[in-house]
């Protein structure tokens, strides 16, 4: 349980980060995370869409329908002001956590 909670929180942060660079659709977000992480992080649809809907209900992201690169109708998500703040908070928490973990790994 603990692990998935950690993962869930992290996934939200990753999605917010991807969207902070510009609007994207579900496939695009998953693809982007996969390629940037050099195929290490592969986001399953089973996690992606629930996360997107949850964040939309919380008001961190908003959606609109538009045209995808290959001329398909797709739902584009974009960051809201609330989402930007949330990304800030989560990134800060992540930096602290990873710094702490790194420091433990190095010095303990």
């Amino acid at each position: 349980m603990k692990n998935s909670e950690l993962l869930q929180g992290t996934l939200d942060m990753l999605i917010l980060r991807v969207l902070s660079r510009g609007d994207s659709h579900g496939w695009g977000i998953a693809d982007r995370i996969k390629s940037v992480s050099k195929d290490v992080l592969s986001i399953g649809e089973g996690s992606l869409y629930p996360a997107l809907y949850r964040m939309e209900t919380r008001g961190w992201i908003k959606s609109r329908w538009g045209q995808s690169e290959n001329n398909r109708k797709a739902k584009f998500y974009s960051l809201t002001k609330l989402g930007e703040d949330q990304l800030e908070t989560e990134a800060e928490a992540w930096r602290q956590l990873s710094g702490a973990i790194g420091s433990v790994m190095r010095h303990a």
Partner: protein
Amino acid sequence: MRVIFSLRARLRALKQRRKLEAEMHEEMRLHLEQRTEEYCHDGLTLEEAARAAAIEFGSLASLKEEAREARGWDWTESLLRNVRYARRQLASSKLFSAVTIGSLSLFLGINAAAFAVLDSLVLNPLPFPYPDRIVEVYNSLPKVGVAKFCSNVGQYLDFKANVSAFETAGLWEMHQDAFADADRAKILVTATVTPEVFDLLGVHPSIGRFFDLTSSRPNAPRVVVLTESFWAEHFHRAPSVVGKTIRLNGEEYEIVGVAPAAMEKFAPQVQALRPLTWDPAEPVLRSGYSPMLIARLKAGSTVALAQSQTAALEKAFYDGAAPRTRAFIDQTGQTVRVDLLRRQRAEAFAHPLFLLQASAAAVLLVAFANILDLFIARINAREMEFHTRAALGASRKDIVFQLGVESGVIGIFGLLGGLAVAEAGLALANHFVAILSPNTVAFHLQTSVVAATAAASLLLIAVTTIITSSQVLQTSWRRYRETGTRTQSRSMQSRKLAGYFVVGQIAFGLMVTVIAILLLQSFLRAAAVPPGFNADRLLSLRLAVPESKEHTLPIRLDEELRKLPGIESCVVTAAPFYLVPPVNASMPLGAVHIRGYEAGPGDGLPSAYYCGVTANYADVLGLNMLRGRWFSEPEIASGRYVVIDETFSKHYFSGQDPIGQKMVINRAAPTTDSDWLEIIGVANNVLHNGIGDKSGQPFVYLSRAHTPFFGAASILIKTERPTDEVLKSVRETVAAVDSEIPVFDNKPERVLMEESIQDRRALMFLLVSLAGCCVFLASLGIYGSLSYDISRRIREIGIRLAIGTPKKDIMKMLMTATCFRATTGVLIGLACGLLLHRYVASLLFNVSPVDVGAYTTSAVVVLIGSLIACLIPAARASRIDPVVALRAE
């Protein structure tokens, strides 16, 4: 309006939902296609790529479910889905739905109807602004066996002026006035009141005005206030009625106003209100008992304070009274009492109605238990369904919600059915009440009753949901992950629960049965009591007799009635079963003086009921003379003789011959020898006050010529001719003698006798039916739960039979637990029944509330019922063919 807006908002949201759902589908489809494309790009064929993408994507349905949950749990959408699902479920198991909804409707309905009656008669009998401050002041004369007599002008004036706990006080007295309508004379129930009564009840005139205290003076102009219904019936609500006059008892009364409809809730029979008058010049009487004294307590004051203040004033009156008055008060034990009018009104009905409500509630509980048991059985049978739902990704919350909606649908249908049953029941009750006593307020389903019924069904829904969910989640959920055989034995927990239900059902069933049998016994005994006279072909009529005519009218009537062929009749002051609404009084009661009789130190004032009769009265009623003789014509005319009944003789002349003894009734002890009346005979006892009469008071027959009529006479008729024909010719005779005399209440005596046990019959009938339902439902519960148990244990029974267990051992095994539960239930029920005995006692007639026979019979009835209920499925189980049972797996 708000409801409509919110409904519209909900519908809009639902539409939105449908759009979102479509978008979700579209979005996921795009994703799937992108993935397929990617796989194609990697060199797979289109078919392989689609397959790989689909596998990786996972179950679309499950993903959607999770996505929906993440998007926020929308209850309207989920509710609609679940309602549709529940509807399909219920439609597919018709028997289950019919049984649960049917029994719920019936028993909720019975409870709602009983509660509506209880509420209007007992809990809230005074729909006025201050029901908890309106009190009745009355006199109790315990030493002569009278618990409650009314009050008088003397107490009214004293208490109104000197009791600081009272804000105001007023008098109210019922009358039957002769009212000359356009075509014929009829009787009108009126009340004479002092004007404080209006203010006390918080009513204001619909039109015109109420009268004030100046109208209470003698010789004040005669005024009358009409009630709303009289105004509507006779004047079609014309406002011009104020200032007109109506004739009551031959006098003109000016209409000054109309009382609102609310006033009729205080005394539904009353149609007009006149001022109550007394003469201030004359010494005010404090000994009569005629008008009812009602008062309103000051805010913050208490009944106890008013009681102590009135008692102190009574004491002061006693100390200053003449020796004769003091002796009277000593001998009668007269004390003044103050009580909430609400409580006084409810008293007569409280016991039977609470009992009825409690029994109805017990049956409802038993029905609830059966419904719950059915639900649990059904949950067990639907294991596969929950398996499937769990596999498809339904969460625990979804399952609980689904179960809640299912019981909700049953509960709501049950509620609607219940309200319909209650409406029908009340309509039936109103129909009978209207026949028994016209002009009474009809019962109806008040909002509070509907709310209580809704609360009861809501409770059922909640309990069912909690229990079924806990069954599914705790005991079965784990098993869904494993594969079980089709017929597992019932889980321990659900078996234990069913066991409690059985014990509870049996206990309740037994209690209701005991009470029903006690009431049945007492009804049979009451119906079998000989009334003491021959009621066959005996008719009675009542007619109003103004005081001015009471010496002439009866004699002229006797003469005219004698001319009618085929009847024998007599005109007397009061007939047995003097059940004239609204007074519903007993025979008049009078103080008795017997020459040479010395009351013991603790004895009360000698008293007896009495009526004035004629020489042929004993023949008309078929009385038996135990000693001496009945009156002759000259003895009636002289008015110097009396006939007593057996009780009187035993009470005051034990061991002596009463014939030739001297006595008087209803007047002061004579000083001269010639004023005493001589006892010439002893007649058998007659139940003058109805079959349920328990007063045990002696009775005295006096000459009609020397007895007051108190405004009304009875004509008793013995005839072989058809009833309607005789009543018609008697009415015509009365009209011919005096057209202003109204005749009312003409009924054969047999009917009156039945009416006097009508309430007993109704209560008995209702409770016996409820007890029948209770025992039947409890047996059904046992039957259902054991049958179900056995159906789940077929494999076990099959194995036992296969290894050679004798059939009777199988039956014993199956029945032991149920019989043990039934016995426990019976014992608990007997114990609870004994605890209730004091409560039941007041409703019984000649039956002990701890009657061994009734308890034994009930226990036997209930035990036989439960034995049959478990014998049938057990016998069926023992006939199982082991080969078939094991192959079924």
